[in-house]
């Protein structure tokens, strides 16, 4: 059963341009230079209930606009969309009971009040009964490790602490679907990890669907099963995260260490030395032309191995490759 069905979604913004200076302002007043910006240009996809879907793309690619259309706060210029059976921009209010949203770095908690006050307000707004709200708050406070922060005015929290409270606030009403727009922006690794863990836990325990946008590929890598890559308002790639990696992860990195000092002229056919140390080296190779087997066995012949690690490139690098291919016009979407 599909939680989200999107068909040929489009959004065009009109922005007024003005040339610099007072003269430009006057001209813009009488003869505005209206520019059409196509933020979303015919996006179609489906998402199953309980799926973890990543939306990735550079700034201005149309990720946030798509999310905002799906939550019902922006009206599209064309195309259809259904979220949990509702047309978001026509049924924004009934839909709102079932979705939770996070817009990274935009606050929804009341700045001068402790988070618990906003939680209670949201409980009323989402019409939860007091007992259910209380146990829900206790559960989320434990999951996000924010029990000790709930009574502190939000303005006194660090960014990481605040964001954990923000995400918790979006989950209070047990949404069936979470739409997270850059939830980890500006956070340190520990705070990111806590948020990811809890999102994953909600997904497993409550079958909450998650659609997540990020320009940090590690978010998607850690959380999502499927990824949609979007650029210039269009989907340029859509597949499982694992397929994405298999397809593009042909270049591998090897870190090798020996128990004795190595030859300063150390080299290996079919590989490229990135770094050479006294006891070890770091090298790259393409597994399509140089089989992994051959690299390992030849490295083992060179001496007594202490350690060897073979790793894939990060998703960041993979995505960079895809962007570059899309820019150069190669057809890679399926």
């Amino acid at each position, binding site marked *: 059963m599909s939680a989200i069905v999107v068909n040929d979604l489009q959004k065009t913004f009109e922005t007024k341009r003005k040339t610099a200076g007072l003269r430009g302002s006057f001209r813009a007043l009488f003869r505005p230079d209206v520019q059409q910006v196509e933020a979303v240009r015919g996006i179609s996809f489906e998402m199953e209930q309980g799926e973890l879907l990543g939306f990735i793309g550079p700034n201005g690619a149309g990720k946030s606009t798509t999310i905002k259309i799906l939550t019902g706060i922006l009206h599209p210029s064309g195309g259809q969309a259904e979220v949990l059976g509702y047309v978001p921009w026509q049924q924004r209010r009934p839909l709102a009971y*079932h979705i939770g949203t996070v817009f990274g770095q935009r606050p929804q908690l009341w700045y001068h009040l402790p988070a618990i*006050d906003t939680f209670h307000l949201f409980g009323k707004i989402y019409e939860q009964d007091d007992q259910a709200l209380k146990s829900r708050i206790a559960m989320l406070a434990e999951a996000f490790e924010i029990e000790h922060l709930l009574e502190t005015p939000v303005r006194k929290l660090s960014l990481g602490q605040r964001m954990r409270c923000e995400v918790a606030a979006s989950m209070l009403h047990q949404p069936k679907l979470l739409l997270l727009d850059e939830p980890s922006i500006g956070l340190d690794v520990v705070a990111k990890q806590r948020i990811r863990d809890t999102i994953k836990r909600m997904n497993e325990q409550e079958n909450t669907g998650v659609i997540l946008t990020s320009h940090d590929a590690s978010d998607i890598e850690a959380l999502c099963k499927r990824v949609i890559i979007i650029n210039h308002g269009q989907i340029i790639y859509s597949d499982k995260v694992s397929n994405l990696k298999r397809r593009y992860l042909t270049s591998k990195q090897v870190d090798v260490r020996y128990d004795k000092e190595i030859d300063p002229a150390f080299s290996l056919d079919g590989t490229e030395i990135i770094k050479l140390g006294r006891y070890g080296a770091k090298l790259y190779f393409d597994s399509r032309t140089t089989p992994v087997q051959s690299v390992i066995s030849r490295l083992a012949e060179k001496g007594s191995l202490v350690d060897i690690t073979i790793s894939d490139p990060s998703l960041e690098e993979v995505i960079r490759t895809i962007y570059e291919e899309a820019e150069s016009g190669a057809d890679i979407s399926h």
Partner: protein
Amino acid sequence: MQISPTRRSFPNEFRKYWAILQTQVANSFAYPADLLYRSISIVLFMWIFAQLWRVTYGASGESVIAGLTLRDTMWYLMLAETMILSRPRVSTTIAENVKDGTIAYLLNKPYNFILYQFSFGLGDSLLRMITNSLVGGVVVWFLVGPPPDPRGWHLVLIAVLLAWIIDFCLNAMLGLLAFITEEIAAFEWIYNKFVLILGGVLIPLDFFPDWLQSIAFSLPFAYSVYGPARLFVDPTLSRFLDLILIQGLWVIALGVVLALLYRKGTAWLSINGG
């Protein structure tokens, strides 16, 4: 997959907006300096007004001008200033929300956005209304003597509430303009000047020439400030009934326009930081 539709029940709806109002009252306590500052400004205004009107009454040689004594004028101005200084910044807040993108959070909650602003604004006004009227009242009492007959105060309170709603509707319409133009400071400036002059904030409308009075009384601003302030110094039942009838009509008319504008406005919205 359509999830069972959520029924709207009146008690639940009321609890929502009541909770928003309460939260905003709690929030106002986070700015005690702001409350104090505003109270200081009313002290200053009343003192200046007292000097001005004392001279005016003295120069005219009359003790009653256009039906108002100096004491009436000062108590009129006290209530007018209290109302003006306690107004919520609805349009400015909406414009800020559009600019910084937090409008996205405010629009995707299961409530009516306009009623949210209404409850928020009312919560914002309440404390200031109380402190301003207390401080202003003490100052004016000290300057010109005791307030008008307290037996009319409950009528004044009703008129003040209706006046507040009229101002809210106009203010919220201005705020919705931010959905389209983003920068609304110029419109706000014009609106505030209208309220200042045609609403009778600076000078009671009774002192205006007839032609200007007739213009003022055919516009809503007269009923968002002048009406209740004038009733305060002349709390007769007939004046009250006349006033709330016209106020009621304005509330209905402006409320309908606001609701339509909101329905249209959401389609025009574009959000920064896409």
